[in-house]
C-alpha cells in the first residue's frame, strides 16, 4: 500500500510513454506498475503524468515588493500551474546580488513548501551594470543562472568579464535582450499599431542587436548563454544560427508572446504591456513555430505580478509585466498540440537542464523524489481566479485548453483541481 497512487495516466518514464500507475511512498516514487493501491488515489485517466514543471523565469517580488506578490503566493500560483520548481529573478529590492538574499529566498520557499525556488543571481551589483555581483558567493549558495533581468546588461566590457568569470564556474549568463537606447521612451512594438496610437515604439532591432553582440562575446568567452523571453523572428533566427555553429546557446519564449501580438495593444489595456513588447503577427507565428521545432528550447513564464492600482493608469505609465504561472502549460499545449514528450521537454526537462536544477525535470523512475504533475491536455477551462496576489493577466476570463489536475512536491500534493 503506497501513500499515493496516480492511476490510469500516460506516464513519461525513462523508457518512453507508458500507461501505468505511479506509486509514491515517503516522498519518493516507489514503484511504476499496474494495479497499484494507495491510501490516496489520484485519477489520471486521459491525463499526462510527468515531472513537475520547471519555470526558468519567475518574479516572486520578495523581498521588497510584497504588495505585488510574495514567495508564498507566488509559489502557490506555481503549484496551481503544475510547477514544482521555479527560478526566481533577482530584480527584487534589494537585488539578489549576494548569498544572504539568495539563501533567504530558497529557504523561505522550502519552509512554505509549495515549490522549490532556485534564485537566479544578478550579474552586477544592484543590477546597475557596473561592478560584478558576489558571483562566487552566489555560486556557492547554489545559484547557477546569472542575469540582470529587467534591464539589459548593455556594457559590453562588463558583460565580457562576467562571462569569463561565470564560464569558469560553469554557470549560465541569461540576458534580457532589449537595447536600452533603442527602447528608451518605448512602451510597445514599433510598427503599424504604435504609429497609429502615437506611442513610442521599440523596434525589433533592439532585441536583435543585443543578441548578435552577445553571441560574439559567447564565441569569445565560451560561456553558456541563454536568451530570455525572445520576441522576434530575427531573434529566433540568430539563436538558430548560433546553435548551428555549435555555440552553447539556449532561449526561452513566454506564453504571452505565443498568444498575443501588438494588435492587442489597440485596446491600450495595460495588461498587454510587457518587456519585450508584444511583436507583430509574423513574429508571433515564428515564435510558435520555434517552440514546435525546438529552436526555442523552452517556455518560461516571465510571471511578473503588479498590483491592480499600479495597472489602473494609462498604458504608457503602467509597469511592464503579466502573470503567467497558472496558464503557461495551457498555452504550451495550445502551441505544441498532443506531443507529450515535447511538452515535458519544453516545460520541465530542458529548463531543469539549462538551470542545472537537481532532482527536477527527470523522466519518471523509481527512487527519485516525487516532483510530479498530472496534466489533462484536452480539458477546457476558463481562468477566473488566481492564487497570485495580482491579477494583471489578459488570460483571465478567456477559454483555455489543457489544465492541471494535480501537482506533487516530494510526494506532497501542493495543488489538486477542485480543492
Amino acid at each position: 500500500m503506497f501513500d499515493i497512487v496516480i492511476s490510469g495516466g500516460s506516464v513519461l518514464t525513462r523508457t518512453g510513454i507508458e500507461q501505468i500507475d505511479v506509486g509514491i511512498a515517503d516522498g519518493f516514487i516507489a514503484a511504476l506498475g499496474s494495479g497499484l493501491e494507495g491510501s490516496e488515489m489520484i485519477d489520471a485517466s486521459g491525463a499526462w503524468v510527468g515531472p513537475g514543471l520547471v519555470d526558468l523565469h519567475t518574479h516572486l517580488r520578495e523581498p521588497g515588493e510584497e504588495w505585488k506578490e510574495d514567495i508564498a503566493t507566488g509559489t502557490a500560483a506555481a503549484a496551481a500551474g503544475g510547477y514544482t520548481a521555479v527560478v526566481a529573478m533577482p530584480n527584487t529590492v534589494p537585488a539578489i546580488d549576494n548569498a544572504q538574499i539568495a539563501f533567504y529566498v530558497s529557504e523561505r520557499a522550502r519552509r512554505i513548501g509549495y515549490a522549490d525556488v532556485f534564485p537566479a543571481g544578478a550579474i552586477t551589483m544592484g543590477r546597475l551594470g557596473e561592478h560584478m555581483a558576489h558571483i562566487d558567493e552566489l555560486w556557492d549558495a547554489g545559484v547557477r543562472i546569472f542575469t540582470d533581468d529587467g534591464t539589459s546588461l548593455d556594457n559590453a566590457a562588463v558583460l565580457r568579464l562576467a562571462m569569463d568569470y561565470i564560464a569558469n564556474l560553469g554557470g549560465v549568463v541569461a540576458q534580457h535582450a532589449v537595447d536600452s537606447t533603442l527602447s528608451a521612451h518605448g512602451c510597445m512594438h514599433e510598427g503599424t499599431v504604435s504609429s497609429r496610437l502615437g506611442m513610442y515604439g521599440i523596434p525589433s532591432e533592439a532585441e536583435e542587436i543585443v543578441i548578435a553582440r552577445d553571441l560574439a562575446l559567447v564565441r569569445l568567452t565560451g560561456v553558456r548563454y541563454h536568451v530570455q523571453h525572445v520576441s522576434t523572428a530575427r531573434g529566433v533566427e540568430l539563436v538558430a544560427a548560433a546553435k548551428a555553429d555549435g555555440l552553447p546557446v539556449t532561449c526561452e519564449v513566454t506564453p504571452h508572446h505565443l498568444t498575443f501580438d501588438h494588435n492587442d495593444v489597440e485596446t491600450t489595456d495595460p495588461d498587454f504591456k510587457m518587456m519585450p513588447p508584444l511583436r507583430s503577427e509574423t513574429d508571433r507565428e515564428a515564435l510558435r513555430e520555434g517552440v514546435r521545432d525546438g529552436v526555442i528550447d523552452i517556455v518560461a513564464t516571465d510571471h511578473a505580478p503588479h498590483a491592480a492600482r499600479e495597472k489602473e493608469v494609462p498604458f504608457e505609465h503602467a509597469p511592464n509585466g503579466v502573470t503567467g504561472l497558472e496558464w503557461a502549460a495551457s498555452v504550451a499545449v495550445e502551441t505544441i498540440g498532443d506531443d507529450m514528450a515535447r511538452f515535458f521537454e519544453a516545460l520541465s526537462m530542458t529548463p531543469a537542464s539549462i538551470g542545472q536544477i537537481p532532482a527536477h525535470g527527470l523522466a519518471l523512475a523509481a527512487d527519485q523524489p516525487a516532483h510530479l504533475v498530472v496534466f489533462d491536455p484536452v480539458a477546457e477551462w476558463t481562468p477566473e481566479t488566481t492564487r497570485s496576489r495580482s491579477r494583471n493577466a489578459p488570460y483571465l476570463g478567456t477559454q483555455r485548453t489543457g489544465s492541471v489536475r494535480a501537482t506533487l512536491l516530494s510526494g506532497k500534493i501542493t495543488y489538486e483541481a477542485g480543492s
Partner: protein
Amino acid sequence: MNHLLTTEGLERETLENLLTDADEFAEVLTRPIPKVPALRGKTVATMFFEPSTRTRMSFEKAAKALSADTMSFSPGTSSLSKGESLKDTALTVHAMGVDLMVVRHGATGTPWRLAEWLDIPIVNGGDGAHQHPTQALLDCLTIKQRFGSLDGLEIAIVGDIKHSRVARSDMFAMATLGANVTLVAPPTLLPVDTTRWPAATSTDLDAVMEKMDVVYLLRVQTERGGGSVFPSLPEYTNRYGMTSARFARLKPDAVVMHPGPMNRGVEIGHDVADYERALVLQQVTNGVAARMAVLFALLGGDSDV
C-alpha cells in the same frame, strides 16, 4: 454617440452633423448675448492631467455658452501628487456629480480608461500623440466655412507628424470628409508605418505644396521626444517652414492653418501668420463652436447626432 474619443472610424454623417451644429453655434457666439440654455443644470468637468490653458479655456467657454456649470481639475493642485491612482481620481471627481468629462492626458488611451471606469460621456481633449478630435472638428469647420466643402480638397499637414495628435485626428476626419491628405515631414518625424493610413506621405514640401488648397502647419515640438530629430531649427525652416517666399508660390486661394501655439520664424514665417489667408484666429474662434456642438451632442438628449 456615447463619447467622443477619436476621429478614426467616425461616420461621415456623424462628422457632418457635428459640423452643421457647430456652424449654428458659431452664429450664436456672434449674438449680443452669446449664450443658450441648452445644457442648464449639467456639469462639465475638465480633467487636464497635462498642462494646457487654451484648450481648457475653449471647453469652458463652450460649456458656459450652453449654460452648463464647469469644474476643473489640474494635477498640480491635486491628489495625484499624493499618490492617488488615476482610477481613484476619476471616481472621486465623478462622485461629486459630473455629467461629462473632458480629458487631456500625456498618455495614449487615457480617455478610453475613463470611459471604461465611468458611466458618463467622455470627450478626449487630447491623449498623448494619439488623438485630439475636437481640434479636428474645429479645423474641418474652418475649412468648410472657407471652401464650402472638404470634398476633393488637397490638404498638406506639415511638421512633426510622428508626435502629433492633431495630425492623426485631422487626417482621419479630413479624409472621411473627402479631402486628399498628404503628410509632409522630415523622415525622422514621419511615423514608421503609415501603410494603412488614408493619406499620402512626403518628405519634400516644395514638391507637393503648389497643388495644395490647405497647408496645415504643425508646431515644432521642442518639448517632446528628446534627442536630435533634425539638424537645427534654421535647417528645418529652410525645408519645411512656410516662409513668405513659399507662401507666394501657393495657389492664389490656398490657405494656411496652425493649431497654435505658433513658433513664428520657425514653422511659419514671421508675417505669414497675419495674412488674410492664414486662418489661425478663425480656428480658435471655431474651437468654441465645435466644442459646443460636441457637448450638445453628448448631453443635449434631443440631438439626432
